[in-house]
């Protein structure tokens, strides 16, 4: 199957946006900007999902991820009032070069391994994952992965407990904790 130039171009643009936005997530001084850029990255990834014959996932990505998760991030940022610009200068000696070096090496290493991976040509054009996508996913979800699907209930339960245990304010706990804390600090 021949690779056409428009395809490549489209791919390059989407990936460029995704990577650029991801970089902005990392480099923005303001956490709100980071969150917005995260939304953009997630959106680009959704586009890539469509291109990869996963339209249903793309929809979920938009609704759940870009919609709910990023909003949750934004909500917390606003709630805590940490939407001011930060000082991005590094305070830990050697942290930044080490981090960049490691990330770079990791990228080089994985890319190298992927290059060694082989064929490279998409072989699945014939198999229509895109058509009947929802049906296919439902099929797999309720047969092969039924048990895994049921088990996801448990982490969700933990999330609910976490919210109750950690975020709920309790009235008498305050004074008690303060008196105790001097001993342990």
């Amino acid at each position, binding site marked *: 199957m021949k690779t056409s130039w428009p395809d490549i171009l489209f791919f390059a643009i989407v990936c460029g946006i995704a990577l650029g936005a991801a970089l902005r997530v990392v480099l923005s001084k303001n956490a709100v900007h980071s969150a917005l850029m995260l939304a953009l990255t997630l959106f680009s990834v959704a586009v890539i999902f469509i291109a990869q014959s996963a339209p249903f996932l793309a929809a979920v990505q938009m609704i759940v991820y870009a919609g709910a998760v990023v909003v949750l991030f934004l909500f917390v940022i606003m709630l805590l009032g940490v939407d001011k610009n930060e000082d991005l200068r590094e305070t830990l000696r050697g942290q930044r070069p080490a981090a960049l070096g490691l990330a770079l090496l990791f990228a080089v290493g994985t890319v190298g391994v992927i290059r060694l991976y082989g064929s490279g040509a998409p072989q699945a054009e014939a198999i229509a994952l895109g058509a009947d996508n929802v049906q296919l996913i439902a099929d797999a979800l309720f047969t092969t992965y*039924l048990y895994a699907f049921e088990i996801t209930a448990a982490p969700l339960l*933990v999330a609910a407990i976490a919210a109750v245990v950690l975020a709920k304010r309790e009235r008498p706990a305050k004074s008690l904790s303060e008196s105790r804390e001097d001993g342990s600090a």
Partner: protein
Amino acid sequence: MIRIINTLQVASASLVAAATPSAEGVIRAPEIDYVAIAPEAILVLGALAILLKKGFVPRRYRMMASVATGILAICASLIATGILWQRLADGAAGTAVSGILAVDGFAVFSKVLFLGIAAFAILLGVPGLRRERIMREEYPALVVLAAAGMMLMAASSDLILTFLALELFSLAFYVLAAFARDLPRPQESALKYFLLGAFASAFFLYGVALAYGTAGSTNLTSIADFLGRGSIPWIFVASMALILVGLGFKVGAVPFHMWVPDVYQGAPSQVVGFLASGAKAAGVVALLRIYVSAFHAARPSWLPVIAGLSIATMAVGVVVALVQSDIKRLLGYSSIAHAGYLLIGVAAATPAATSASLFYLVSYAAMIFGAFAIVSVVSGKGDGFTRIDDFAGLARRRPMLAAAFTVFLLGLAGIPPTAGFIAKFVLFQAAVESGLWWLVLCGAVASVIAAYFYLRVIIVMFVREPEGEDLDSDEPDPITSLGMGLAIGITLVLGIIPQALMSVLAGADLVMPGL
């Protein structure tokens, strides 16, 4: 109980079937083996019951009801596991629910182990947390959910289920670590644990993705078949490495160990006992399941790496433990060293090594639980006194506590007649049998050094005069004493008549597919 679940499951399955329109009609849900999924299902339902009871139980009784429900869930799950075991004895090992859940001796034994750990967590944790006034009704729910996750780590036959299980118990532990949410140290430890845990999980997941990309499936049986067919593609090599990052993080292997001492120091002692025994055991059983069983054909590829990891882990664990002055950090580093020993068992990759590892996990769980129970009693309110110096003269102040701690420390050091010695011996012996001489040599050197810092604590307790005023350490309450007594019992009984457990391990037919 099983019947009730049965009914529920059938009902839910038919609901699902009815609600799913499809070209060919309904999706045919797979045959669900309710006995096989019962142990975890009961625990999850138990957790749900704990959360839902709020509306039904009067306020005064809620705490009690929570604990009772938790214990009940664990007992019921234990019974279900027993039924499963019984079925295995008739020779029906295999997989259940579309091949995603392994049902074999290894899984079942591990389930019993984790249920025991969860029982200990409630037995020792509830009174301890009450003492600290940070006990909450949700604690038993988190314990049983974590237990369910850890049990699935052992039973999962699919990497994606392993990922879910790993996240399940990790998330529960993040919350537990943050239980004393208003104190700075627990907060710090929860934050560190959570951030690094999420970071490491991402690596694990990447590894799963690459494994899927090579083998075409995340199912361990398919992966084993794939590897059995011949050479290992490069990308799978990276996959094995990244999976090891995630599991290495959970067991506390070097260099993924750095969270261990901080979290052990900061989190409430009652929780740390659970974390130290449970999370480590869960990581080890998953390593055994994935590496020893599924990746068995690739053993020549991973053996040197696991061995190197083991050596580095033992070395850093014991050497850094030497310079610690905080008992909880010391136990943290010691648990890192123990992760190194356990990796020897993974490297050996024989049925004997597997049962030796399980034996090790059982005895380690008893010892570390006991040790942290004592730390929680001695260190007093808010874990205020955790310096090793705070244990000076404990033998005079609280002779029984000092004696009990001595038993646990000797066990951790691997000195007979404790279970720690037998565990180390059978593990090393299994490794020697599979030709890993040099690794055992390193393990032996590490345990020589390790004995020193355990002994140091004992000496401080027995030999040094107490410093300053008598610390306000309470006498342990009866339930904590009972828990400690149980832990001592296990440590000594397994040390003196290890056969009690060995025969179970041998009879449980711990054959995993691929071995």
